[in-house]
């Protein structure tokens, strides 16, 4: 049989090539331009301190976004990650301050809670078959309500007065816990190391293991995957659990970073996480959720926020830019999708 080769079409016209180039590298190009722009307008921008600042600030968003990426890979969506972050933040705070627990407990309990929320999401979406957007929206409300009810609406900090008026809380945010958010290894912030290691591991997992492939296959065409013997509902369940666990991990890092159990702290992370994952579609023209892309997406958002803040753009106006970037990245992905 005749093999068709790309070289059979040598005169691929210029317009086509330009479009292809932008589909592949448009997002990275935008990232480069943003960096150049900020470093020209502000000489503090490209300093070691600021770069580590940026990376540290995006580490939490990246963790949330990785979870979102998993749910998107299986063709789902998880709106509850923001409230899961809040719950995990509050839970670790409460364990430290109200119950004076050890580091291990403070780490494990929120992660288990995150996994539980993932299981609830999976039950609602996979088993009951409520559409993902609506089902996880409902869970988002529930989790929000749960964590506010638990703290009676108070944020948690060391030796705070107990909400029920029974004196002062016994515990504090222990240094070992705070290290997760504030510590440094080899002069690199610990959360940055955590983020980079996790991004690398997840990338390897998704691209080089059987399980990773099956996540993608499930999202690619659920019915075809099922007929090929893939247990698709099991993988969809795994994806929601992983999403919940990553959100919980983000919550732990957030609590350690700010040193309090702030209520509703995770709310803004939902949209940033989703935006990072969506921007990731366009990186290298992948056209599908992928963790490297998600990481780049988080970097773009982080740099924008940092740079705009340095330029004294108020935080409420920064959303306009974020939205614009998202439209641009999605345009690169979807512009030529209708074939």
């Amino acid at each position, binding site marked *: 049989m005749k093999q068709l080769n790309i070289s059979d*079409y040598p005169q691929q016209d210029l317009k086509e090539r330009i479009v292809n180039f932008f589909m592949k590298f448009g997002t990275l190009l935008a990232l480069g331009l943003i960096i150049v722009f900020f470093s020209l307008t502000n000489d503090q921008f490209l300093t070691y301190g600021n770069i580590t600042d940026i990376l540290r600030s995006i580490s939490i968003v990246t963790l949330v976004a990785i979870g979102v990426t998993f749910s998107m890979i299986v063709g789902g969506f998880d709106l509850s990650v923001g409230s899961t972050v809040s719950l995990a933040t509050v839970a670790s705070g409460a364990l430290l301050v109200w119950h004076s627990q050890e580091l291990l407990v403070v780490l494990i309990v929120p992660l288990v809670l995150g996994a539980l929320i993932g299981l609830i999401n999976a039950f609602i979406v996979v088993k009951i078959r409520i559409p993902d957007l609506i089902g996880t929206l409902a869970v988002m409300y529930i989790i929000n309500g749960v964590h506010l009810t638990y703290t009676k609406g108070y944020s948690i900090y060391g030796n705070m007065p107990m909400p029920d008026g029974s004196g002062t809380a016994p515990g504090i945010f222990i240094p070992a816990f705070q290290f997760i958010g504030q510590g440094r290894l080899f002069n690199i912030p610990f959360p940055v190391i955590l983020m980079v290691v996790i991004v690398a591991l997840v990338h390897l997992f998704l691209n080089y293991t059987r*399980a990773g492939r099956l996540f993608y296959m499930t999202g690619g065409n659920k019915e075809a995957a099922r007929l090929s*013997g893939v247990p698709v509902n099991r993988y969809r369940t795994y994806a929601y659990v992983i999403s919940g666990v990553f959100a919980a991990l983000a919550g732990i890092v957030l609590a350690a970073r700010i040193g309090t159990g702030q209520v509703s702290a995770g709310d803004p992370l939902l949209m940033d996480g989703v935006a990072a994952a969506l921007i990731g579609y366009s990186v290298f023209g992948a056209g599908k959720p992928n963790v490297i892309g998600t990481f780049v997406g988080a970097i773009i958002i982080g740099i924008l926020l940092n740079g705009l803040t340095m330029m004294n753009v108020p935080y409420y106006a920064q959303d306009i830019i974020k939205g614009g970037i998202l439209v641009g990245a999605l345009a690169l992905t979807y512009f030529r999708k209708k074939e």
Partner: protein
Amino acid sequence: MSLLQVQQLTKSFGPVDVLKQVDFSVEPGEVHALLGVNGAGKSTLVKILSGDYEKDDGSIQINGEEVHFTSPSEAQAKGIAIVVQEVDTGLIPNLPVVENLTLDLTVGGKNSRPISWKKRRHIARERLAKVNTHIPLNQLIEDCTLSQKQMILLARAVASEAKIIIFDEPTAPLSDHETKQLFQVIEELKTQGIGMIYISHRMQEISQIAERMTVMRDGKAVAVYETGKVSSEEVIQTMLGKQLHKADYHHRKISGETMFEIEHLSVPETGKQVSLTVGAGEIVGVAGLVGAGKSETANAIFGVTNAKGKWFVNGHSVSIKSPRHAVNAGLSFIPEERRKSGVLIDSSVQENLSLPALKSFSPAGWINRKKEHQSALEQIEELGIVTSSPKALLKHLSGGNQQKVSIGKWLNHDSNVFIFDEPTKGIDIGAKNDVFRLITHLADQGKGILYFTSEFDELLQIADRILVMADGEITDEMQNQEATEARLMTAAAGGNAVETVEYQRLSAARP
């Protein structure tokens, strides 16, 4: 003067010339069939005529008037209507039949005046009557059968006072009876002087309904024949442009051991029970008209739907509650809806081919990509899959090549039983012969084959034993040597005597 006269029509997409100086014409009251293997340029020609694409060069004349379409609405205004193959793209699923039929009154530009429901129903009924069809006017489109939807599209085309109607493989989803009904309507349209372009792969139908046929190959109109003055063989050879190796049935030796058996399988959708056996190395065909419950049965056997019954593979009882169980029990399934459930079109050829046997490529959980790639290369060579590389996305392959992937992916897996559901649907004759060769090859290796189809001539070519299904039940069984197309057709329609009666009534009612 011809109704439609196409001269020297040329079209290219980038560097690829898809139409090369095509001449084509349709007379009033004529059905002109358009034949050609996939990729011959039929669709492009039709899309230019219906205004979907713009022509590059050449002339199109309607009644001697030169036309140039830049949009489908311009083509419609000049009296060209098309009954598309994907009927759902032309209809609004959550609206009732009456509104879909009279859509032009709702959105009809200057003619859109308020109109009473009574009048609308009246118009809708008239339009349906013109195509000899009765469909409850309040029925929602989503509850209509494929043939009903097609009739609604046709009724709309007729109502728009089209002079030329294009049919794109209209009978593919239709049962025998529905096909006859459609042909009656076409005959009537002929008497009204409407010219029709009829795209089909089915030679028998074409000789029945068409006056002339144009054969296309590689973007050229290579021959025009008058129906009846040419043999099917010759037409098929012209289509292929090479000698056709017909996969004629030759008797194969079968050991007689039972490889696969189902007992009292209750199929949920049909509510009927099915029992059958497949021998090692045996190709068992299941013949049935559209709507006989073949796909439902095939799905039930593979555990896609929740069916109850007993399965035996090599004499061992197995429990199959999901496709996963079926795969583990050594079953393979090539479903009818290829793009929907057979392959992952957004994934690469390589990823599709390795999917069912992914475990063998990743013993410790890590995928051996080199091995995967190598195996894909071998399979591409072996199955004759035309693709730029194993990493090409499946959506860029033609239907026939997608089907080869849909079959090929099971060859890595240790399967004993292969279930095919309409495997030649929408693929050209070249690919079809490749598929047949593949199936025969599998049987020669001792695999058991179950082959569900409504194309009876295929079973005569390939099946060792043929079961006939009607209304969800197996009504007849015969060895290949005993089978004829006539006997199969009779048995397949046998469970449905009403249909024959109704057809006679309809024929009698015609003027």
